[in-house]
């Protein structure tokens, strides 16, 4: 056997142990309570999925909730009975929030599921079995870390691509009052060691160190005796470590036993170490060798308000009240009640702490259930553990820094937390705080330091989540903008394409018309024997258009002339010298000249067009006119509709629409006349 050099971690405290009270008697079996409250989210990770229904009968050990996702654990019925409700109930959690619980009314038979009672689920040759099968069984049996945090053991044992050098079994149990692991090792050392063997087999570690504090000599002896029984090919050593809080912290225990430090933000497997609690080892043994899921645990019930402090094996889901009744809970009298000799009020809220005095939390009621990770129920008297509600100002004594086992600067962290300087707290490695409470314990001002750190840790997590969400929103917003732009661009492109085709069609039409005209003029030219250049290439102008242009040009001309007259008159009126040039006059005169030219040109063109017009007109077929007539009728119909609508709704556009209607009727009449004329001419 190799000799093990012990190391030490910085800081730490030596609070009153108060462990002897609960180690006087053997582990008792708690009677099955009438009703069990089994939360489906007892572990770190996603709450399990309930697979039973209200009214179902369940047997002891039957799975009632399947793990959801990788980091999750199955939940089993702790006794046989009937599911009476699946509802939201308050959880034994510092938040006091509600969670899904399966409520089981016990039938009193405490009957195991058949596969478990007949031993068919047991794996007796576990040291020869594949790791996958063992890990699957650990997962199926819902084993989670029994030391406190409740991390699913199967996940912890599935270390991928990492060689595990050392397996550390945590039997330090450093927190005052708690003796559950101590009693487990004393009474069930062999089971625990066999569990250790299974874990050692799975991890294939070269070393296995079981760390136990030197204030548990009985446990150390029991473990060493058991070691002689099972020891052989394995390299398991029981190591006695000095008593100091918090040597049971994972990182602290690793430091004590190996001298190695787990890097900030990393898990122990990063340096080839896996750490498991002794309670977990025993649970693993039961799961593998007996096929029994995790449905009960050893819990310490202690404190001055308890008549018989002791350790009991309690079913998961047992209400704390049942436990208190079993161990004898006496409600403490207040000072006033003591003075006047009255009994304590029955309805006053008992002060019960789940967990130890350092890291535990006060329960809101005694109806809350025991969880897989509940190692202690503490009912202290006021004198024993005074409630801390008066905190004074920090006097900068620095005791907290000396006590901190994680080598942090608690005082700095306190200032940052108090002022909400999250980034600075983060820079000072707040994430490495193990929330052991050593700093709060030594603080002479009784500042609830750990609560500040817990709050700040949560706030940092929140902030990070918010940042992630905002980054995601930004991406989504930009993606949406891009999509909208793309859609707009596509629409625009389509519109342009449509416009282009329409233009092309127009151009083709024009070209066809021009060709037709060309042909006619050519024919005409041939017929007349006249080769007039002008007529050979006539522009595809229609008469009406030209007439309109002529009218416009004439109107413009008239306007310009009027303007000149006006200007002249104004100049004369102002009495200026007649010789002086009138402003802008030349511009207008030029415009007049231009317009005159244009009018002349247009008149000429009209004349030319008129010459060729009869020929064009002849080509107009009856169909064309009919088509026009039909279109006009349609248009008229539509206009009528619109007029009706406008009338109905009393729109302002009514007069304009009416005018349009009249015009269209006129046009229709004209077209009808034209058709009649055409028919006449044809006849």
């Amino acid at each position: 056997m190799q000799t093990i050099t012990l190391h030490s971690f910085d800081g730490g405290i030596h609070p009153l142990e108060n462990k002897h009270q609960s180690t006087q008697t053997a582990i008792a079996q708690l009677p099955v309570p009438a009703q069990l409250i089994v939360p489906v989210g007892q572990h770190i990770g996603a709450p399990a999925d309930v697979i039973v229904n209200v009214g179902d009968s369940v047997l002891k050990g039957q799975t009632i909730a399947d793990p959801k996702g990788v980091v999750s654990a199955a939940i089993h019925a702790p006794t046989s009975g009937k599911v009476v409700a699946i509802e939201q109930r308050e959880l034994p959690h510092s938040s006091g929030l509600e969670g899904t619980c399966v409520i089981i009314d016990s039938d009193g038979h405490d009957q195991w599921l058949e596969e478990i009672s007949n031993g068919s689920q047991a794996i007796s040759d576990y040291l020869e079995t594949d790791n996958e099968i063992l890990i699957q069984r650990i997962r199926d049996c819902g084993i989670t870390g029994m030391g406190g945090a409740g991390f699913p053991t199967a996940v912890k044992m599935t270390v991928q691509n990492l060689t595990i050098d050392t397996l550390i079994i945590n039997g330090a149990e450093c927190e005052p009052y708690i003796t559950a692991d101590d009693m487990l090792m004393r009474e069930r050392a062999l089971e625990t060691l066999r569990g250790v063997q299974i874990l050692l087999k799975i991890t294939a570690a070269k070393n296995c160190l079981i760390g136990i504090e030197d204030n548990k000599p009985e446990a150390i002896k029991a473990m060493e005796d058991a070691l002689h029984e099972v020891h052989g090919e394995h390299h398991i050593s029981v190591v006695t470590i000095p008593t100091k809080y918090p040597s049971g912290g994972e990182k602290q225990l690793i430091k004590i036993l190996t001298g190695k430090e787990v890097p900030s933000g990393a898990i122990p497997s990063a340096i080839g170490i896996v750490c498991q609690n002794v309670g977990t080892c025993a649970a693993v043994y039961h799961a593998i060798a007996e096929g029994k899921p995790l449905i009960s645990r050893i819990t310490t019930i202690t404190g001055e308000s308890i008549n018989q402090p002791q350790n009991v094996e309690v079913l998961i889901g047992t209400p704390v009240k049942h436990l208190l009744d079993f161990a004898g809970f006496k409600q403490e009298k207040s000072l006033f009640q003591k003075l006047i000799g009255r009994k304590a009020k029955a309805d006053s809220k008992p002060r019960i702490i789940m967990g130890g005095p350092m890291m535990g939390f006060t329960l809101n009621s005694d109806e809350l259930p025991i969880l897989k990770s509940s190692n202690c129920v503490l009912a202290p008297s006021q004198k024993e553990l005074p409630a801390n509600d008066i905190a004074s100002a920090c006097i900068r004594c620095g005791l907290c820094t000396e006590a901190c086992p994680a080598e942090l600067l608690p005082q700095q962290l306190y200032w940052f937390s108090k002022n909400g300087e999250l980034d600075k707290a983060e820079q000072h490695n707040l994430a490495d705080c193990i929330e052991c409470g050593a700093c709060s314990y030594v603080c002479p001002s009784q500042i609830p330091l750990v609560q500040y750190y817990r709050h700040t840790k949560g706030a940092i997590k929140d902030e990070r989540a918010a940042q992630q969400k905002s980054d995601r929103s930004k991406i989504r917003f930009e993606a949406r903008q891009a999509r909208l732009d793309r859609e707009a661009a596509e629409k625009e492109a389509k519109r342009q394409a449509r416009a282009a085709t329409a233009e092309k069609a127009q151009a083709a039409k024009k070209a066809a018309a021009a060709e037709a005209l060309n042909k006619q003029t050519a024919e005409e030219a041939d017929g007349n024997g006249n080769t007039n250049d002008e007529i050979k290439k006539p522009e595809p102008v229609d008469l009406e258009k030209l007439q309109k242009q002529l009218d416009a040009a004439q109107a413009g001309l008239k306007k310009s002339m009027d303007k000149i007259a006006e200007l002249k008159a104004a100049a004369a009126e102002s009495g200026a010298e007649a010789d002086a040039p009138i402003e802008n006059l030349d511009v207008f005169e030029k415009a007049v000249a231009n317009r005159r030219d244009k009018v002349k040109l247009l008149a000429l063109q009209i004349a030319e067009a008129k010459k060729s017009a009869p020929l064009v007109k002849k080509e107009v077929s009856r169909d064309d006119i009919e088509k026009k007539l039909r279109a006009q009728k349609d248009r008229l119909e539509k206009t009528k509709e619109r007029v009706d609508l406008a009338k109905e709704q009393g729109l302002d556009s009514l007069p304009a629409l009416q005018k349009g209607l009249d015009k269209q009727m006129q046009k229709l009449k004209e077209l009808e006349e034209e058709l009649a004329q055409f028919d006449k001419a044809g006849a």
Partner: protein
Amino acid sequence: MSSILIAVLLLATLAIIFGAILGFAAVRFKVEGNPIVDQIDNLLPQTQCGQCSYPGCKPYAEAIAAGESINKCPPGGESTIIALADLLGVEPEPLDAEHGAEKDVPMVAIIREDECIGCTKCIQACPIDAIMGAAKQMHTVITDECTGCDLCVEPCPVDCIDMVPIETTLQNWHWDKPENSVSTIEKILIKEVH
């Protein structure tokens, strides 16, 4: 005389050389866009709610870079204003009440699905595409993506969208801040005085 000439020439040559280096660097290492805009944009909450009167956080970031005041973002609230003031080296100012008040708790939109008529108006209003659905089909909000910007509430013709606070679960719960230690004592003193 010649020494002065040499000095002048030397300095001129150096000036030309360094000028060339600087000119090259200015072209070679040209920064695309305005980096300060991105920095400001990163500090904004990205709810894209438009309460600042700009159509999104990026446009507001651009406006701030161009001299707009930094107190127009109610979803970001005081912490954003302080962060912006830190970044830009200006004095933090109180939130401009004209643009709305900071909400105490983060909210998300929830569609009462049996009342939804499938008009897609909320989908068009959502700046981050966090509403799923199609015409004449029921719509629903992707709660994890919703920034609680309120923009979908107004267009809904049947008023079936509610803004609800994000529920506290075991996953997102964290410890409250302890009451200010000094104020606890002050409270006791005040009690004694009265």
